[in-house]
Every structure is written in structure tokens, then in C-alpha cells.
């Protein structure tokens, strides 16, 4: 098995363990019933998504500063994975909201900013596809990634200032019973490992793609240089 296959197997196993904690270890919520179990993966996926986008931000800043191709590849990989986790967050949130709030969607601050997050990074991936590959696409994407990351808290704040109904941060407020907290922390750790493994695999794919593009040219250049020497 390659390193990436080992990583995949390990993260699948970890997610199954997390599932065990969510369904077998954590108690059923007195008010919300079994639906509350969505919370563990929902919040973990959201944190993983924010983590991915933080990587996009850092990768973008490092690229603009040092023109380091690896930083750009890392940003590219993290953007895609982050988008996947944002999708998971949104879908699971909507499934939870239907029985609890009686509606799939409401224009609450956290929902709105998560949706905006999704749209911004979908735009990020579009820029990558439409800009000239290489320097231009890396620079433009870095700018989009930086503005996107800054805009999300701004959107969140501006909507909060207006109206909000999303549950507050229960974890930080110390409002979670101990067994639920344990299940949550384990799910979060496992999800973060999964995200890291996904980024590593995606990074490898981006690396090989870049290399393939490079290979088309390298031999021609080498050949011409040899010809000049003669």
C-alpha cells in the first residue's frame, strides 16, 4: 500500500469509530431526540471546512509573497476539499433544521455566511479553470481566496447585526454534557484527519498534473539546448 492508501484506510476507520461514538456512546438529546446526533458531524465538517479555507488563505498569501508553486498547489487542493466539507455542513444542517425549525432554510447569519462561503470557493475554482494556467491563475485565485476568507466573517457580522436564530456556540459555552462533549471532540479529531488526508491526496494529484504539463516541454528545451552546444 502507498502512503496515500494507508492514509485513506486509516481515515475511513477513524470515521467509523467516530460513528460508533455518535450513535452508541453519546446519549440521546432530551429535547431534540435522535436528530441532535447530526450536530457532531455537522459542526466537525464546518470546522474542517474553515480549516481548509484557512489553508487556502495561507497558501495564497505565501504564493503572492514568495511565488512558491507548492503553496499554490496546497491552496488548490484545500479549496476543493473545503468545498466538499462546506457542502456536507450545509446539507446536514438543512436535514437537522427541517424537524427542529420546521424549515430547511432560513436567512440566519450563520446559514447565510456558510452559503456565501460555498459560493465564494466555487468561484475560486471557476477562476482557476478560466484564467491562464500557471502564474495568472495562481495569482487571481490567491486574491479571490484572501477576499473570500475576509468576507465571510464580514457577512456573518453584518447579518448578525440584523437578525439571527442559529443556536449559539454550545461547545464554547460549556453547555454540553460530558458524554456528548467526548463524542463531539472525537468526531472533530477524526474529521480533521480525514480532511488532512483528502488534502494530501488532492495535493498529489495537483502535483502530478503540474508535472505532466511540465513534461510536454522539458524534453524539447533540453534537446534544443544540446543542439546549441554542438
Amino acid at each position, binding site marked *: 500500500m502507498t502512503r496515500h492508501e494507508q492514509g485513506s484506510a486509516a481515515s475511513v476507520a477513524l470515521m467509523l469509530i467516530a460513528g460508533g461514538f455518535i450513535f452508541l456512546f453519546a446519549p440521546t438529546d432530551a429535547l431534540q431526540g435522535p436528530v441532535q446526533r447530526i450536530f457532531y458531524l455537522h459542526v466537525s465538517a464546518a470546522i474542517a471546512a474553515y480549516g481548509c479555507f484557512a489553508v487556502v488563505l495561507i497558501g495564497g498569501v505565501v504564493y*503572492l509573497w514568495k511565488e512558491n508553486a507548492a503553496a499554490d498547489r496546497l491552496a488548490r487542493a484545500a479549496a476543493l476539499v473545503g468545498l466538499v466539507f462546506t457542502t456536507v455542513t450545509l446539507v446536514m444542517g438543512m436535514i437537522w433544521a427541517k424537524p427542529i425549525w420546521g424549515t430547511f432554510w432560513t436567512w440566519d447569519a450563520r446559514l*447565510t455566511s456558510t452559503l*456565501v462561503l460555498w*459560493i*465564494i470557493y*466555487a*468561484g475560486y475554482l*471557476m*477562476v482557476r479553470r*478560466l*484564467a*491562464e494556467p500557471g*502564474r*495568472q491563475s495562481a*495569482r*487571481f485565485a*490567491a*486574491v*479571490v481566496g*484572501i*477576499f*473570500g476568507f*475576509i*468576507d465571510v466573517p*464580514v*457577512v456573518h*457580522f*453584518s*447579518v448578525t*447585526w*440584523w437578525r439571527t436564530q442559529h443556536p449559539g456556540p454550545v461547545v464554547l459555552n460549556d453547555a454540553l454534557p460530558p458524554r456528548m462533549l467526548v463524542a463531539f471532540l472525537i468526531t472533530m479529531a477524526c474529521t480533521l484527519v480525514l480532511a488532512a488526508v483528502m488534502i494530501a491526496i488532492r495535493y498529489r494529484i495537483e502535483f502530478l498534473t503540474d508535472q505532466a504539463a511540465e513534461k510536454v516541454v522539458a524534453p524539447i528545451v533540453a534537446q534544443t539546448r544540446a543542439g546549441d552546444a554542438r
Partner: protein
Amino acid sequence: MRSITIALAVARKDLASEWRTREIVPALAQFVVLALVIANFGFQFDSRNAPAIAPGVLWMALVFAGLVAFGRAFAAEREQASLEAMLMTPAMPAAIFAGKALAAGLLLVICEAVLLPALALFFAVPLTFDEVSAVLLATVGMAVLGCLFAAMVAQVRARELLLPLLTLPLWIPFVVVGGQAVQSAMGGGGTATGSANGLLLDLDILFVVLTSLAARFVLDD
């Protein structure tokens, strides 16, 4: 100092071109009036729901007029191949960007001078100082963000598609806060306009600083 001279020269050049060709402003003014006509039929507007609907109509018209104005500001430079000619000088890209954003923002302000009275006229809502100040403050931030991404998409394929995709999410804070301000100014209730304008000013400062830092990555090859 030199940067300010350059920014003003770029803005003056754009405004002079627009004054002579009258390409953008008449089309945009017509567009916003049409948007009001369509909204009137779309919303089944009457005198009771006007204060609730009018702010939304205002921001929809403004946002789409803005997309056209800012997209055009850089599309013209690209078609004429003059953007490159500007960049092939020692002038700071941030100064060139500031000039473009200033001119495009002013064109949108002219368009607002048509939109706001037309809204007051057709929808029988009051035209107040608070409403005007909120719209003008939002225009500043929308112009710098819109022009940054317009400069970007002018250099890539499928630019008509990409500009709204990148710009609209970043404009949401301006629409949320500005919309709130306009709503309360029109008597639809909500938070006091003063605090909304303060917030819009903060957003303007944030994005003016950020876009001027980012301009050179978007404009300089």
C-alpha cells in the same frame, strides 16, 4: 503624491471618454428605470407594501447596474488594448486601479441620481438624506470590489459569467447593511440609519485598503 496625480488623470480620462461617447450612463439610466417597471409588475406593488418592497428593488437595480458599469470599465480597456499600454509605464498599478474605480464609481453615482428620484416617484416612497447617504457609502465599497474583480475577469475567458459570480458574494455586506438603512429611512422600521452608515463607512475603509493592496497582483501581469 504622484500616485494621486496618476489616479486623477486616469479617472479624468475615463470620464472624458464617457462624456464624449455617452456609452454607459444613458444605457444604465434606462436600465434602472426599466428595472423599476419590471419590479412594479413582478411584485404587484400597491401603496401599503411600497416601503417594504422599494428598498429591495433599489438594491437589485443598483447591484446589477454596478456589475455592468464596472465590467464595462475594464472591458473597454481590454478591447482597445490600452490597459497594457497603461501598465507598460512606471505608474503604480494601485494608482491606475484607484483612478478606474473612482471613474466607474462616479458613473454609478450618476445612475443613482436617476434611480433614487425615479423610485420615489414611481413607488411613492420618501427620498431622504439618510437613504442617499447609505447608497453613496455603499457605492464606494462596491466600486472598489467590483473594479478589482472586473480587472481580473477582463483578463480571463468567459468574463461575463465570472464577474457576478465573484463580485456578488462580496457585495452582500453592503446590501445587507445598506438595505437595512434604506428600509428604516423609508419608514419600514429597523435599526437607526446612523449606526448603519457608520458600519458602511467601516466596510468602505476595510475594502479600500484591501483592494489597493491587491491591485498590483491583479493588474501587473
